[in-house]
Structure formats: C-alpha cells, structure tokens
C-alpha cells in the first residue's frame, strides 16, 4: 500500500492545533506542578535563586574544621559545587539547621559519628542524608496550631451547606419544574439576584445578623451564609434536571400503587441523582474554597481557607509551608470532585431517559 501524502494545509492546521492544545495544557498544568514542587522544597531550596525545577531527594554534606568549630557545606546541584552554610561548634544548631532549612534531619549522635570520622583524619568528611519530603506538611500543621480543627470545621461547613442547599434548592427546583404558578419565571430569574451581591458587600449586615442570632464565629452561621448563593445555583441545576424527567414516569408510578412521595423517592430522585451530584459538587467547592466571608464572619474559629491565607502573612510566612497548606486544602476538593464525577457522567449520556 502506498501511503497517501499528507496535504500541506492539513499539516499546518494540525501543527497549529497541537501547539494550541499543548500550550493550553502547559498553562493549566504548570502552576499546579509549581505548587506541588514548591510544597516539597526545603526552605533553603525555596528561597534559592534560581528555584530548583524539582525538589532534591537527598542532601550531600561536606564537613571540615572551621574558625568557630565545624564548617558545614551543602552540595548545590545547580552550581555543581559545595556551598558553606554554617560555622559552629554547637551540634544542636547543626541538627536544627538540617531539619528546618534543608529538610533532611540528622540526629545529634549521627552528626557526632561523622565528626569522629573527621577527627580521625578524613578531612573534609563527606556524607549525605535522605530528605524528608513530607516535612513541610507536618511543619505546617505544627506551626499553625489551629489548622487541623479548621480543616475539620471546613468539612463540617461544606457538608452542612450541601445538606441545606440540596434540600431547599432541590425542592424549589422540583416545584419550578413541575408546577405552573403565577410569576414563576420572574421568581426563578430573581433567585439569581442573590448571587449578584459580592460577599464583602453584604458582610457587615451579615455579621450583625449572625451575632444577633448567636451564629457568629460558628460553622452553622457560615454554612447558612454560603447556602444563600448555593441554593440559587442548586435551584437552577435541579430545575433543569427535573424538567428533563418526563412527568409520565411519575404518573406511571402513581397509577401503579405509589403515593406521590413514593413516586418521587423511587422514580424521580434516582433519575435526578446526576443533577443533584453536580449541584452538590458546586456547593462543596463554593463552601470549601470561600475565604473572604470566612475571614469576616469568623474570629477564633476560622475555616481552613482562612488558616492557609493567614499562613501567607506574618512571621510564619514561608512559601513552601504555604504551598503545603494550599495543597492540603486542594486535596478534598479534588477527591470530592472525582468521587462525584461518576454520577455526573451519567448525566452526559451514561443513561438516556
């Protein structure tokens, strides 16, 4: 068989297409890679110039006698040579430096062992230690003491927001889809109005209202505030889903012995699951990621997003720690999205109604 020559115009079009797709992928993936890589960098690496492309897995040391005691040098793979970092005779200082600056901790007895090698005549002594990649993560939770409770609190808020908005928004969506009443379309449209107000703009009245009903600085207060927006979104998503489920399916259930509620529960609800899952996903992401209102509406019980935000500021502020915190924050969103994806997939052709 003779291969057909590829036409020139087609070649050009393909090249442009793949260039476009590749650059799109780079634009999306590069920042993610940057964040992941940053979260594994030691503090010394994170503030080096140029920034390493990937975190080192092993740190090579070289030690010799210095003016004040021992002179510690670290191998720099970019320059290809050792760089002196410390000159001290306090072993705790060396150990601490290894832990916090280099992320490759060695215990004092281990350091003493290398020193004895140095004293025995090998000068300089060279040795290495494995880097603890997860150090930033554990450090983040150690330094920001409220991070773990905040994480649990954020999960709690997201869960409550989902429950509130699926129940209220789902019922409203069903009503909009199934019943005709005066002003239905106007009402359905006006529901979107609540999403027009930025959180900051209504924050002050919110603080006052929540304080009055005793919900200020409490998870329930935040989930109520988040529900306002996500109920509107849920109504729109579920209304269109319910609209797509033929009424006759419910009517058939009613004729064949079901009550109206049973018909909803056993026929309409399972069919609406993809839509409800999509609504739940948007609600989760909204509640989980929201920061501005959370900063204003909490004081001693911040959400996780607030904690991550605060870790960027003040004395704690280390980019690698913030990156670790950011990834911890991104993780549940990714997991939740993947978990719910299969339900949403049903909506796009997995099942025909």
């Amino acid at each position, binding site marked *: 068989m003779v291969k057909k020559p590829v036409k020139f115009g087609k070649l050009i079009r393909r090249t442009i297409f793949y260039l476009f797709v590749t650059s799109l992928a780079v634009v999306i993936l590069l920042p993610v890679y940057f964040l992941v890589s940053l979260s594994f960098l030691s503090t010394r690496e994170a503030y080096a110039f140029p920034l390493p492309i990937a975190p080192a897995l092993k740190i090579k040391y070289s030690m010799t006698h210095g003016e004040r005691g021992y002179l510690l040098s670290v191998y720099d793979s970019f320059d290809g040579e050792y760089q002196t970092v410390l000159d001290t005779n306090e072993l705790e200082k060396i150990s601490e430096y290894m832990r916090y600056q280099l992320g490759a901790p060695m215990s004092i007895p281990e350091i003493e062992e290398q020193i004895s090698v140095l004293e025995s005549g090998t000068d300089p002594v060279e040795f290495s230690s494995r880097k603890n990649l997860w150090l930033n993560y554990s450090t983040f939770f150690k330094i920001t003491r409220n991070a773990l409770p905040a994480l649990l609190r954020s999960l709690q808020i997201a869960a409550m927001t989902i429950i509130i908005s699926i129940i209220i928004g789902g019922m409203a969506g069903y009503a909009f889809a199934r019943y005709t009443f005066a002003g239905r379309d106007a009402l359905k449209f006006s529901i979107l109005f609540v999403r027009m107000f930025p959180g900051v703009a209504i924050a002050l009245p919110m603080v006052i209202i929540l304080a009055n009903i005793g919900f200020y600085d409490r998870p329930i207060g935040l989930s109520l505030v988040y529900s306002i927006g996500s109920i509107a979104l849920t109504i729109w998503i579920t209304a269109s889903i319910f609209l797509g489920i033929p009424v006759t*399916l419910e*009517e058939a259930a*009613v*004729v064949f*012995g*079901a009550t109206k509620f049973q018909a909803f529960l056993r026929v309409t609800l*399972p069919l609406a699951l993809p839509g409800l899952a999509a609504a739940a996903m948007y609600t989760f992401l909204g509640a989980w990621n929201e920061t501005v209102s959370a900063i204003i509406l909490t004081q001693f019980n911040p959400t996780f997003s607030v904690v991550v935000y605060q870790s960027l500021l003040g004395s704690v502020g280390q980019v690698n720690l913030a990156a670790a915190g950011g990834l911890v924050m991104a993780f549940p969103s990714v997991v939740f999205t993947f978990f719910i994806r299969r339900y949403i997939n049903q909506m796009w052709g997995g*099942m025909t109604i």
Partner: protein
Amino acid sequence: MATLEMRNVTKQFGRKVIAVNDFNLKVADREFLVLLGPSGCGKTTAMRVVAGLEEVTLGQILIGGRDVTNLPPRKRNVSMIFQNYAVWPHMKVFDNIAFALKIKKMPEQEIKKTVERVAGMTNIDMLLDRYPSQLSGGQQQRVAVARAIAVYPEIFLMDEPLSNLDAKLRGSMRTELKAIHDMTDATTVFVTHDQSEAMSMADRIVIMKDGEVIQMGTPDDVYHHSASIFVADFIGTPPTNFLDIDILTENGNLRLKNQFINLKLDDNIARALHGYNSNKIILGIRPENIEIIQGKSADLSAACLVSEPQGSHQIIAIQLDKKMFKIVAPATPKFEPGQAIHLRFKQETLRFFDPESTLAIEA
C-alpha cells in the same frame, strides 16, 4: 372484571378551557371500549380522569359500582399503558414489572412467579435483566404492557399505546393487545386518534369532539350509520364523499340534483326524507359504495383525475367543483388520467345530512 361508569363528568383547566364537558359513559364488564377523536378532543383527559391523574371538576366516576371520584390513583385498581411507554429507565425490566407488586408487599417468591408469567405472555422473558435503554421501542412497550397486566387491574387504560411504534409493529401489537384483553378479562378503555385502530379493536367506539361525545356505538354502527358529517368524514379511509344537493319533486318522485348528478331516489330510500322540509341537503356516500359501470344509465360521469393502485383494489379520484371525490374500485380495469368514468351509487347506502346542523337525517 368491573364496569366503569362516568356520570356527568366535566373537566375544566383554568377558567376557559373545558377539556371534557358533561361526559356520560357506561362501559360494560370485559368490554373493549375505544375513545376516538382528533387531537385536542378531550379523549386523553377523559382517560386521565378515570385513572385519577386529573381531578374531575364536576361529576362522578364509578368502578364496579364503587365511587372512586375522590380516590388517589393507587386506590382505584386501574392500570395504564402510556403513549411514550413510561418505563422507568433506572430499573431493569424485572423491577419495572415488579414495582407495583413490591409496593403491595407481595411475597418475593410470588412476585417472581407473577413477573415470569406476564413476561411470558408478552414475550419478553429473555429481557428481564436488561435496562429499558437496551430495548427497542416495541420491546419497551411490551414491558409497559407486562407491567400493566401484572397488577390484575379491574380497568385497563391504554393511552395511544401504539402511536409511537412503526406501522408494521403497530399492526401486530394491535392483535396482541386484543389477545391480552381477552386473556385478562379486564375492562379496557383504549384511547386513539387512529380510526382504523379503533375500528379493528373496539367492541364499542366513542367518538369525541371538543370535549363532547358525538356518537357511541359498535364499529359497524359508526361506520354505516354515522350520526353526523364529522363522524362520516372521520371514520373510514378514504373518508365519505359529500355532495351539496337540491331536492326536487317530480311526478311524486324525489330527485337529487346538482350540476353533476341527477338522481331519482327509490321509493324506500326516499321515505327517509319525508320528514325533512328543506330543499337543500348534503349527500354522503362511502367510496366503496360506488360502482363503475359502462355508459348510459350512470348517476354521475366525470374524468378520472388520478388512480392509486393498492394491489387488491384501486382508489380512483375525480374532481367535482374543486372537491375531491374518491371511489374504491376493483383492481381492474385500469383507468388513465382524463379517461371518462361512469358511476352508479348504491342507493341503500346513501346517507343524508342536514347542512345546518350537520346531523344525519334518519327516517
């Protein structure tokens, strides 16, 4: 297994739309009754009222003598077959059929037996663990039928169950539905807009228009003794031919005359018009009641416009004053367009209608 009675049932939507108006109907036990009418005539609404899917505005519904007017659908012991099948897409065929039985809390063993029995009756026993999306339209409708039989209903309601099927399948499903009706002993109300479906299936046909009953009777009744122009036109393919006619009296004989025909009525036929006191009338004659004859003594002569061969017979159209006039004739002899045709009407089949009221004139 039960009679159905609708007494003065009226269903009104909103303030203006009256879908069913003062509807009275008695369906006998085990009868196969067809509600027939053009779309929007209220036939489906009448059925939905019986099912309990719509509440009546006025009137009463009795099933087996029991007043069910205010009962929810599940307490009426009816089952229904829907036009778009309405099988539940997220349940396997087995669960679709078993749905009602599970709600009734029938023991599992018995459910299995019932489902297998009705699946056998409808020829879907190999499909029980498939999802509806894996079935063809005809198979889905069988599932709907099986589901409807499984509950031992007193009344079977069928809402245009065949109109979503292709023509060939429709024909065979017709026969099957009729057979199932005979097997189950249930009283059946069947809604359709297809008059040939109604003619072939019904014990009795109710013809509806604008929410009211126009005529009620056996297929033969409504075909041969159509009560109005509407019925005569709606029933039968091709429909009844109509002619505007003047009545003349000549030597004591009645004559029907217009620009095309001049017909002397036989005495026994003319008797039907004795009570009628106007000289304008509409004559109705069915296409198969017209004979093609040779020459002279024809009631009507015209040029053939088009001939449609049907194999067993042919349909010949002629044009009279811009109106199409059709004749069902034997397959031979053939006629060319433009060729002269001589026709004679079978007088005993002539139907007369009052041009004012459009109702049939009976002796």
